């Protein structure tokens, strides 16, 4: 039997022959993916929003491979204090992976640093007069140990939850202690429709000249390089390599990744925004 080669990140047991076969079929023009998707096509997923009554905003997503993620957003009123890190601390993100003892700091960081994009106006909406502000807790619960890299699942669910997050309307004056409108129907969205939406992160794997969105773990194992591209609105706000692969990646490929990510993200935003409109 062929020795098993296990990719460290994805843990896929694929023999060198299988890896090579997969690699070849992905480098063809047009490429052939194992599940016959087009390069930009995502796997089917189930998404629900606004599922938990005790949160300000929530969402749940179930990926085809069994990955499941629940995000709850809660907001609390907090006094401004000089000792804390200022507005940077107003949003707190924690990721909990089921069955793992330690919280995965890296994943949380990925989401957090792209969340507070300047000019999005989120921090202005969190300020409550002169002395108080909202503190927003984003708790991400990864229910099943992910089979492929969970970054896409996490950020898409977080996006959905944040889009559905509402904060009670402030009725008091700037200098007073905050008093809120009792009517939940008057609550204001954290991310209004006409403003910059929360960012999402897409995983892109490049094999030869071809690039693929939403890679399965087999594709991740066969890829030359795995990039996590964060997109906010119509702009790319961050790119990082998750797996260097064998020989790195050419400049032209990175350029294409960024260009295509914007187009794909627009489609993703469109379909995520339609979640919950049906009912």
């Amino acid at each position, binding site marked *: 039997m062929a020795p098993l080669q296990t990719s460290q990140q994805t843990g896929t047991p694929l023999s060198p022959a299988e890896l090579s076969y997969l690699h070849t079929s992905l480098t063809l023009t047009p490429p052939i993916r194992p599940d016959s998707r087009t390069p930009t096509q995502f796997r089917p997923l189930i998404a629900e929003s606004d599922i938990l009554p*005790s949160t300000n905003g929530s969402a749940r997503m179930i990926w085809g491979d069994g990955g499941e993620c*629940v995000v709850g957003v809660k907001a609390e009123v907090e006094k401004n204090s000089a000792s804390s890190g200022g507005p940077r601390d107003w949003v707190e993100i924690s990721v909990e992976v089921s069955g793992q003892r330690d919280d995965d700091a890296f994943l949380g960081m990925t989401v957090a640093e792209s969340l507070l994009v300047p000019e999005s106006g989120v921090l202005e909406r969190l300020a409550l007069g002169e002395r108080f502000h909202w503190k927003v807790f984003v708790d991400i619960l990864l229910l099943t140990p992910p089979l492929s890299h969970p970054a896409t699942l996490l950020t898409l669910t977080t996006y959905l939850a944040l889009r559905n997050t509402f904060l009670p309307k402030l009725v008091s004056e700037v200098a007073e202690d905050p008093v809120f409108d009792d009517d939940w129907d008057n609550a204001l969205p954290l991310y209004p429709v006409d403003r910059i939406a929360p960012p999402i992160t897409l995983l892109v794997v490049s094999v030869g000249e071809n690039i693929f969105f939403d890679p399965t773990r087999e594709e991740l194992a066969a890829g030359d390089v795995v990039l996590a591209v964060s997109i906010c609105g119509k702009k790319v706000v961050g790119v990082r390599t998750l797996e260097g692969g064998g020989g790195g990646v050419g400049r032209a490929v990175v350029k294409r990744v960024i260009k295509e990510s914007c187009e794909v993200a627009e489609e993703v935003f469109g379909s995520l925004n339609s979640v919950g409109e049906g009912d």
Partner: protein
Amino acid sequence: MSRYEILSPEGLRTDGRRWNEIRRFSAKMATTTAADGSSYVEHGNTKVICSVNGPIEPRTANARNSERVTITVDVCFAAFSGTDRKKRGRGDKRVLEMQSALSRTFASTLLTALHPRSEVHVSLHILSQDGSILATCVNAATLALVDAGVPMTDYVTACTVASYTNPDESDEPLLDMNSAEEMDLPGITLATVGRSDRISLLQLETKVRLERLEGMLAVGLDGCGKIRQLLDEVVREHGNEMARMGAL
């Protein structure tokens, strides 16, 4: 005396139920493909996701028993599940107690001797809490264990009962507490196996008059019977669905 009345003179509770009515109960089986068995239970505003893996090779040495299968339970409260955000660590006393209560209850009902030297791992996630959390966890775990095909004698079903004191000092049992009732009234959680009236789990965390316990148990057993019927419907419907899809 609390601000609002738990039971109105007309016999209605704050959410409009009568004393012997349970809240809206809905459950789903096989919600994820990543585990051997899974379920999602909504009981009122209490929402629990459960997944079961097993029988598997024991992951730790102390889960290995050459006589029977070991049942390990992980209970996890989501930080956003309560009214205020609160993170519960793994060492939280209440969580540990729930875990041991659940694993002991199921150890007595599952046919543990059939899978020696292996482990059944039950993982429960509480997404939203509104009373009767332990009972909902029991029901969710039962459904997930059925979905995983772990051999068991019958359904384990659980519910809660509170004891309400009327202004005239007479008492009235209230079936299925929500969180407001749980806060104000003494109550019990009990679980039964199948149609029998045999109690496999009984938890009493507050003081209650001894002579009231009998009545509460009677109402609780009745409630467990109702829940059993609901779970049975869910399982049958899921089975029919599987048969239609050609999975059986």
